[in-house]
């Protein structure tokens, strides 16, 4: 009897151990760290990596040294999918993070982002100092869900040597641009392009920016407006003056042989593209990758005088996820990151534009070549942003495919944008 009792209890014990082990394994991923007394630990997960992450870490250290109530721990996690899914659980894995302006509305609509309005007030963040075009993307349903730390604008870069050789002045109107593209496009004996008048950093960005420059608009309060007259005009302009000039197949061959973006083989850096529409970060990489390149930058040519200084503004944002347990402390750190001194240090090292317009006059950016052209554009009334509405991601994919069809000569501006219009009916609202 004693023996049987012993055996049973032992098997039972083993059974219990087996169940407990399984349960422990299953639950291992779900446990959260408890708060000890003392300073609150904030987790700052960011998409930046490499040298940019190093700058950020020095900023985090400065903040930790400046007070003793909050300890911020930075984690470089350049994975947007992971970032998004980790916000779906009730227990957050970070308290503050960064993303891009165009996603704000989409994420806010899903309840992922904590509204910042009360913190903007409690932390005295001077919202009026921020670039207006960037701020537009930060709101959803009248509330602010993210704030920009750095912003970007797009301008026309040109290779001075190539323009001089061809006797071309930097263009100021769309007609002059068309003329310049024609003069600067060179084909060899077999008809292959050896030098292109205007390159293309990213077709979607280039053509949406041109859409703004032709007075177009990509969305309004009722949703996407791909077939806006200015947009069609812009895409049509590109097709006639860039694609048809050399032929779609010829252009595709040229693009296929282009080197990696911003590498030494990049077509603008290697002198194979005389002009290109791109953002201010190219200035920082030009000094590193192509120090001998003699280049200049000018505003995007105006289709009409009222459309002078048209540009597209995009931004890098900071936000607090809804599932953070330390929102107040996160807001305190957010305010610190957005303070003028810290923002200056950060944007300067990354070669980005500061989101605060008051910093644009700072001498600190003087070392970055031609920086003022991009910076000045931020305050232009013709600086615009793509909508950050919930349908943004789908819309940009469809626009990208439509532009691709035009550049490949498979469609024309009106047909391609009509197609986007028809697709837009199934978008997430």
């Amino acid at each position, binding site marked *: 009897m004693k023996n049987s009792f012993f055996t049973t209890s032992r098997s*039972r014990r083993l059974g219990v151990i087996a*169940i407990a082990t*399984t349960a422990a394994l299953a639950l291992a991923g779900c446990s959260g760290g408890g708060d000890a007394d003392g300073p609150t630990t904030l987790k700052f997960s960011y998409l930046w990596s490499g040298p940019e992450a190093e700058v950020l870490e020095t900023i985090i250290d400065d903040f930790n040294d400046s007070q003793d109530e909050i300890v911020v721990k930075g984690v470089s996690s350049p994975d947007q999918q992971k970032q998004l899914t980790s916000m779906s659980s009730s227990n957050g894995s970070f308290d503050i993070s960064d993303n891009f302006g165009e996603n704000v509305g989409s994420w806010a609509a899903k309840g992922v982002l904590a509204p910042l309005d009360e913190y903007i007030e409690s932390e005295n963040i001077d919202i009026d100092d921020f670039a207006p075009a960037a701020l537009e993307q930060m709101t959803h349903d009248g509330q602010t869900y993210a704030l920009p730390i750095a912003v970007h604008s797009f301008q026309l870069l040109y290779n001075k040597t190539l323009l001089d050789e061809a006797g071309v002045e930097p263009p100021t109107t769309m007609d002059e641009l068309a003329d310049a593209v024609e003069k600067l496009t060179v084909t060899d004996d077999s008809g292959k392009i050896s030098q292109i008048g205007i390159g293309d950093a990213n077709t979607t960005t280039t053509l949406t920016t041109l859409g703004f420059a032709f007075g177009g608009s990509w969305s309004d309060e009722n949703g996407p407006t791909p077939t806006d007259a200015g947009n069609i005009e812009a895409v049509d302009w590109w097709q006639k003056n860039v694609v048809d000039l050399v032929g779609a197949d010829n252009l595709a*061959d040229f693009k*296929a042989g282009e080197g990696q973006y911003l590498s030494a083989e990049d077509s603008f850096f290697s002198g194979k593209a005389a002009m290109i529409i791109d953002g201010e970060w190219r200035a920082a990489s030009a000094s590193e990758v192509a120090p001998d390149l003699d280049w200049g930058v000018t505003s995007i040519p105006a289709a009409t005088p009222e459309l002078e200084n048209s540009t597209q503004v995009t931004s890098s944002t900071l936000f607090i996820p809804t599932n953070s347990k330390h929102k107040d402390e996160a807001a305190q750190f957010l305010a610190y990151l957005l303070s003028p001194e810290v923002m200056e240090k950060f944007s300067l090292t990354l070669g980005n534009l500061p989101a605060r317009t008051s910093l644009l006059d700072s001498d600190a950016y003087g070392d970055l070549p031609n920086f003022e052209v991009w910076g000045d554009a931020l305050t232009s009334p013709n600086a615009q942003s793509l909508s950050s509405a919930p349908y943004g*991601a789908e819309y*940009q994919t469809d626009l990208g495919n439509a532009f*691709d069809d035009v550049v*490949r000569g498979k469609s024309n501006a009106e047909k391609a944008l009509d197609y986007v219009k028809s697709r837009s009916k199934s978008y997430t609202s």
Partner: protein
Amino acid sequence: MSMLTRRRSEARQTARDLAPKRPRTRRRSFWIGVAFASPFIVGFLGLFAYPILASGYYSFTDFNLFQSPDWVGLDNYEQMANDDVFWKSLANTLVLAVMGVPLTIAIALGGAHLLNTPIKGQPLYRAVIYLPSIIPIVVGGYLWRWLLNTQYGFVNYFLSWFGISGPSWLQEPDWTKPAIVLVVLWTVGGTMIIYLAALKDVPHELYEAASIDGAGPWRRFLNVTWPTVSPVTLFQVIVCLIAYLQIFTEPYVLAQERLNNISSGPDQSMLTYAMYLYQNAFVYLKMGYASAMAWVLFIVTLIVTLVVLASSKRWVHYGSK
């Protein structure tokens, strides 16, 4: 009650009297057994059964992963029928399968013959052929992006030896699918090794008998090898077909653009079904639509597999029959 059954029940009764504790012990050991099997049971229920059932439910909802799902009935399935991109992705996937599966089978079987010849250093060749299969697909994919590069790639350099000016593999819509198949074929070693094992199982007497009957190498292959390895071929065709219907990593890596923006190659020629499903789920956060797509893929796969199985009666020969 017959005599026999009564006897049986009496016997059972006696047994129970003799060992009154046994049923309880048995029940107890059942639960102990369950406890020990619980890692699997919990894993199966939590990681397989629940997600599968949940995706079935989500496919009838509008669900963005963060907020509770809204029941929309058959909307997702209707939307799919009218979604050009959905049809394009399905067509791309089927084209890849039609190109890739026969090539895989042919190359694997041909290569297995070579690996089966008694020459010096054979174990080394076998290892080398299998090597790409143990390299992570993402790593291989990035490697191939460079190999297929129009300007600097070795593939076009190699073709130039024969006076062929190679295409822009990843930029021309007509060439992206051959490029994907090429990258997948790089790991054909896995399929080849299975064929090698099958070839070693072909009874030697059959070849001898065929040779005596005057059959040349091609006849011997057709009448001895092919029928004998046909059950293995059936397995390989089904596995390979399913792999192609779900193909994701190779086209995803080959089509990838700067900043990992959504991309599906020129003219969406590399957008496979699984890629479009992924985009809907994790980029557009249309989990309901993605779940519906997953179920449609499941049904398509099931139908295709059943068709292959049905056809197998005509061409698969089992030794026992």
